[in-house]
């Protein structure tokens, strides 16, 4: 069975209440979901919240998966939409810097946080790029997803993705150039 076929089969088992199948789906995609959420939200705690919300939605809406895209693409679309919801909610509440369950004195936690961080100049430059272009660049260039996958996830035509990726990179280059000259 192909990987895509296996994942579709797993999701069908999730629909029938198979917890192990859901656990397998979660473990297969949790790192990338977290990574996408962290890049979009730029906040570790919120990225973890969004990852949790994403998989709860996956579990609850597994029966709505139509099989028109890969399971992973469907999950990342849920993740991106969950992040958009988080951003809307965040405008209404203050942000804390670290999750309660991460002990900053724990060396492994610190190491993980540092390794996940973008270089500061890239982070600052990315933050200055409008969200629709930034998210296309994040999915395409940081997460390495194909243009058709990004189009599925962002729910826009491939031509729009190409344009957004091109213009997003160009804005990023300009931002980085401005940082170097300032």
């Amino acid at each position, binding site marked *: 069975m192909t990987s895509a076929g296996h994942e579709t089969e797993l999701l069908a088992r999730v629909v029938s*209440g198979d917890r192990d199948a859901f656990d397998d789906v979660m473990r297969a995609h949790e790192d990338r979901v977290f990574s996408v959420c962290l890049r979009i939200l730029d906040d570790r705690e919120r990225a973890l919240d969004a990852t*949790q919300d994403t998989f709860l939605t996956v579990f609850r809406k597994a029966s709505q998966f139509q099989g028109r895209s890969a399971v992973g693409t469907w999950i990342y679309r849920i993740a991106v939409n969950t992040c958009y919801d988080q951003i809307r909610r965040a405008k209404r509440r203050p942000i804390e810097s670290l999750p309660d369950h991460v002990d900053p004195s724990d060396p492994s936690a610190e190491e993980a946080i540092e390794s996940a961080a973008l270089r500061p100049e890239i982070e600052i430059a990315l933050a200055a790029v409008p969200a629709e272009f930034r998210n296309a660049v994040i999915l395409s260039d940081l997460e390495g997803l194909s243009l058709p996958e990004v189009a599925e996830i962002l729910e826009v035509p491939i031509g729009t993705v190409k344009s957004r990726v091109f213009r997003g990179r160009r804005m990023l280059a300009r931002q980085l150039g401005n940082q170097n000259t300032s």
Partner: protein
Amino acid sequence: MHEHDPDLIAALADGSLDDETEARALIESCDRCLSEYQDQVEVLALLVATPTARMNDLERAALHRDIWTELRRSPSRTGITPWWVRWSYVAAGLFVTVGLVSVLNGQFLSIGGDSAGEAFSEIGSGLDDTGAGGEQAPLTAADADEGAESATTTAAAEEAALPYPFADLADEARANRDLAEDRSSQFSTEAGEVEECLELSGLADQVLVEELDLDRRYLVMMPEGETGDLTVTFVALDDCEIVYVDG
């Protein structure tokens, strides 16, 4: 003269073109295109070199714990009924059915060949008497057998009436013990409250392997330093009572 083509330049930069001839010709004949191409390559190199963000072990364990806790708390919204909920429905249904059959049989035995209408009238008055604290008819042998069956069913119903599937949670606690061992409490409590609770419940020498924030807050405890099929004890934090012991 070549026309400026952003898509072609972007595709050349990320190496997704099968044939680069046209794109190469474009950037050689157009200064603006060349500048755009160099920007795209430079940015792409920076982004690709960025390591993938990953959760650490603590975050991963917390994520799994929180997701499973949430799914146990509100399983009905999934549209999927977990096995333990289905069995609790079956146990409750069985309990009601057996109880009803036992009442009906008792009444039919005592009234012999009376008509169904009279039988139900008798049942009604019997129930009224019971509700009013009146005397009940002596139990027949058949009643006694059915009583025993009812008692068994009652025990099953009580088991099913536990607010959460603790046996199942105990299995998960055993499976996740390596991740959770030696953790300290994450519950927001007054200083020493958890320790005091464990002292009161006689579990101070055990390891806190998990915490569940369900209808109440539970501490999941296991003996220290042992392996194999360990005893798992669930302690309610609000009254320090042991609510369930598995194994």
